[in-house]
């Protein structure tokens, strides 16, 4: 009897193991799990490995299909774009293309390409490959950034890019349906990294797990939710990386990630809690690296809703009733008060605009003028989790609540998670709402047109959640889109900012410099305003 029971117990235990094993109906998994050891990382003597700690894993390594920073920060190492941004700002410099010109009507862009570039899989890079990539992006809505930047719709997947042709082995010509001044800045975005057509064909659906580009680092291994390993591209046409390997490690908890940095198991981290900045500054082994600001945090006022918010005077009064200098102290040293929708680092920034002065009495008078002497109730929709441009949304909202109370405006804070917040604000449920924006291509158009033009004030998919509809602004912004002369464009944008200031659809709050923390042995880490940077110049000593 005892023996029998023993056998049965064994059988049960085996069935337990079987359940576990049954989960693997994929023969490929064996191979993958074999790779699961971190042992394949570098570590052998003399190799320089940079370990970058971050809060989330990449989604895909095909940059054309993602918009999340954690994917793009990896793909920017693997791929090159036709042109690229300066390491410190968003001025454009050569990359895969050595020179370019645009026709007088602003519709034809011609790029001369390098003839000495090879993809990581050994195939040669030619003009046909650029054509292949662009035509691929024109085939479906899954190419998010293409659709978004070039205005593709379901009926017109090409957007404004009518034709892409190889006009020579190493020359490619774009024909646009309308002049587009930001075009050059847009093709520099890391989302438009040129991938190896052969690899795309070879891997098909699986391509995003086997990225092949021309960039300074070659993809080596991806252990999902754990880490991604890249190795140096010895044959890089640009400056060959000083690091031998880069490891992107996922450590979800901000506090735990910071302790890993302190203990030396990672070299750089993003998502530093603002309250840890002091600790970093007091630590001899660590350094703070501040990313130049290319963002804005704001409170949009829903001009579309009947009631006080539709009244310009009320919106101006709210701007006067908020003490921005005090508000900015809640940004824990990473923020600078904003007065315009675009950050000062961008060309076209209008520094002559004078911000509304904090003056509750004047605000009250203005409210009385508008017929709201006794005040009113409004909702303020906010998101619950910190974002790069707003480290403490709830506390910031409470401060504004207090300040507005002094002018008899009763604010009811409605807090929800990010997805729900976007859904609610796009559908105009709010009276007032927090939101922010991080620029994509370093062009003022990418702030002003996206966030404030009437074209983008469509219920249900609004970038313009103030639902601010100004024909005057629309004309200025449209003009700036087709004007090729940057100085003239700059003037147009400056005018636009004056207009926005006067109509006050927003309370601009802050521009932040999101901090990274790094070990002091990390040298030459130049954080880029767009939020991602190639590591070929970075060194470890």
């Amino acid at each position, binding site marked *: 009897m005892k023996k029998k029971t023993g056998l049965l117990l064994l059988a049960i235990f085996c069935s337990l193991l079987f359940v*576990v094993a049954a*989960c693997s109906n994929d023969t490929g998994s064996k191979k993958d799990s074999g790779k699961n050891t971190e042992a394949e990382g570098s570590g052998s003597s003399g190799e320089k490995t940079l370990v970058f700690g971050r809060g989330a894993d990449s989604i895909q390594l095909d940059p054309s299909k993602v918009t999340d920073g954690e994917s793009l920060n990896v793909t920017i190492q693997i791929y090159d774009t036709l042109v690229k941004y300066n390491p410190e700002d968003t001025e454009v410099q050569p990359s895969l293309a050595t020179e370019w010109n645009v026709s007088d009507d602003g519709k034809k862009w011609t790029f001369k390409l390098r003839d000495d570039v090879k993809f990581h899989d050994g195939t040669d890079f030619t003009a046909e490959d650029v054509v292949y990539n662009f035509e691929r992006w024109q085939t479906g809505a899954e190419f998010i950034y293409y659709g978004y930047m070039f205005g593709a719709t379901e009926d017109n997947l090409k957007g404004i890019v009518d034709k892409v042709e190889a006009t020579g082995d190493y020359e490619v010509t774009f024909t646009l349906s309308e002049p587009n001044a930001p075009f050059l800045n847009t093709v520099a975005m890391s989302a438009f990294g040129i991938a190896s057509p052969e690899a795309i064909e070879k891997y098909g659906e699986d391509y995003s797990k086997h990225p092949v580009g021309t960039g300074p680092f070659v993809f080596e291994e991806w252990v999902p939710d754990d880490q991604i390993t890249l190795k140096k591209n010895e044959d890089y046409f640009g400056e060959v990386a000083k690091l031998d390997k880069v490891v992107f490690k996922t450590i979800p908890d901000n506090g735990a990630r910071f302790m890993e940095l302190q203990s030396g198991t990672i070299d750089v981290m993003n998502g530093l809690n603002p309250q840890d900045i002091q600790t970093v500054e007091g630590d001899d082994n660590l350094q703070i690296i501040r990313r130049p600001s290319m963002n804005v945090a704001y409170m949009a006022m829903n001009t579309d809703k009947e009631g006080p918010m539709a009244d310009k005077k009320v919106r101006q009064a709210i701007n006067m009733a908020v003490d921005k200098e005090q508000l900015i102290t809640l940004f824990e040293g990473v923020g600078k008060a904003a007065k315009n929708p675009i950050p000062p680092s961008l060309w076209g920034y209008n520094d002559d605009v004078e911000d509304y002065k904090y003056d509750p009495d004047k605000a009250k008078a203005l409210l009385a003028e508008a017929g709201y002497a006794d005040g009113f109730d409004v909702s303020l929709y906010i998101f619950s989790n910190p974002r790069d441009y707003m480290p403490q949304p709830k506390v910031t909202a409470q401060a504004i609540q207090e300040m507005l109370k002094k002018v008899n405006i009763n604010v009811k804070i409605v807090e929800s998670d990010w997805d729900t917040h976007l859904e609610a604000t796009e559908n105009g449920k709010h009276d007032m709402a927090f939101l922010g924006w991080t620029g994509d291509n370093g062009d003022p158009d990418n702030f002003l047109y996206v966030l404030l033009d009437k074209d983008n004030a469509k219920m249900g998919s609004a970038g313009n959640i103030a639902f601010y509809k100004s024909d005057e602004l629309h004309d200025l912004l449209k003009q700036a889109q087709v004007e090729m002369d940057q100085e003239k464009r700059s003037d147009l944008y400056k005018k636009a900012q004056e207009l926005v200031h006067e109509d006050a659809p927003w309370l601009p709050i802050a521009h932040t410099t999101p901090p990274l923390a790094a070990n002091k042995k990390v040298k030459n880490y130049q954080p880029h305003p767009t939020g991602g940077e190639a590591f070929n110049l970075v060194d470890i000593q």
Partner: protein
Amino acid sequence: MLKYIIRRLAMLIPVLLGVSLITFSLIHLIPGDPARSMLGEKASQQQLELLREEMGLNDPFIVQYGRFLGHIAQGDLGTSIQKKEDIASQLMEKLPATMELAIFAMILAVIIGVLAGVVAAIKQYSWFDNLSMTGALFGVSLPIFWLGLMMIWLFSVKFNILPPSGRLTAGVELNSITNFYLLDSILTGNWTAFKDAFSHLLMPGVALATIPMAIIARMTRSSMLEVMRQDYIRTANAKGLKKGLVVFQHALKNAFLPVLTVIGLQFGLLMGGAVLTETIFSWPGVGRYVYLAVLGRDYPIVQSAILVIAVIFVLVNLLTDLLYKYIDPRIKYN
């Protein structure tokens, strides 16, 4: 007994149906849109709509649930939304990590918990009793995320003697056979890897063990106290049997039944992946996998993973029930 086991296994079906229905409903109640969290704020309404359609999110709840059950019935755990990976093989890769951690924590919890409980019981109201039971109270009350962070701070940052996260240091080579690193390193005779894997296991293992250890200690103590008052123990003592023999052979064996129940339940829980511990120590197991999936609103992963966890939980408990027979031969399974 075979009948009993078959009946218990058959009971799995309604349990799993219930679990799947609850998970499925709950996850659809959480605010948030998987299409949105995947595409980000820059996606157009059209792109969002397209993705929702592709993922079948526009179908009525009951249709989605039916489709999910249909796939499960065919043994298909589905594909993740974000990375489009086969969930089954992902779970398979992560289960050994979770099991290794759970088994280690459980061994620790049982050895220390039972010993502390026994000693506390036979030395009732002694300083040891008071100390260990106060300690146990702390053990159940300490939030793991706090304890975990404090341990990392102390042992990794301050003293720098233990690695803060992961399963193996980059650069340490280990050939995976079972994906249980300790076992693999023993099998291949790779002692460098063994030492390294063990040092990685230590902190999360101890953090994870605190709660079960405390519960086991308290359970053992109270159960032992009850048994020690029984007549047959008095008899055994009166016969002049050695104290150790009385305590461990006569008393503990009888006191162990409720303790075993607790051990089984706790072990079942740990095998499902310790979300907090795995997240803090970046332990690449099932718990962290589910946590990241919840953050990314990756519904299929959460659904399938919870189902697999439920199966494991039920099986572990069945195993515990069967172990009763060893401890108490009077138990009959009919």
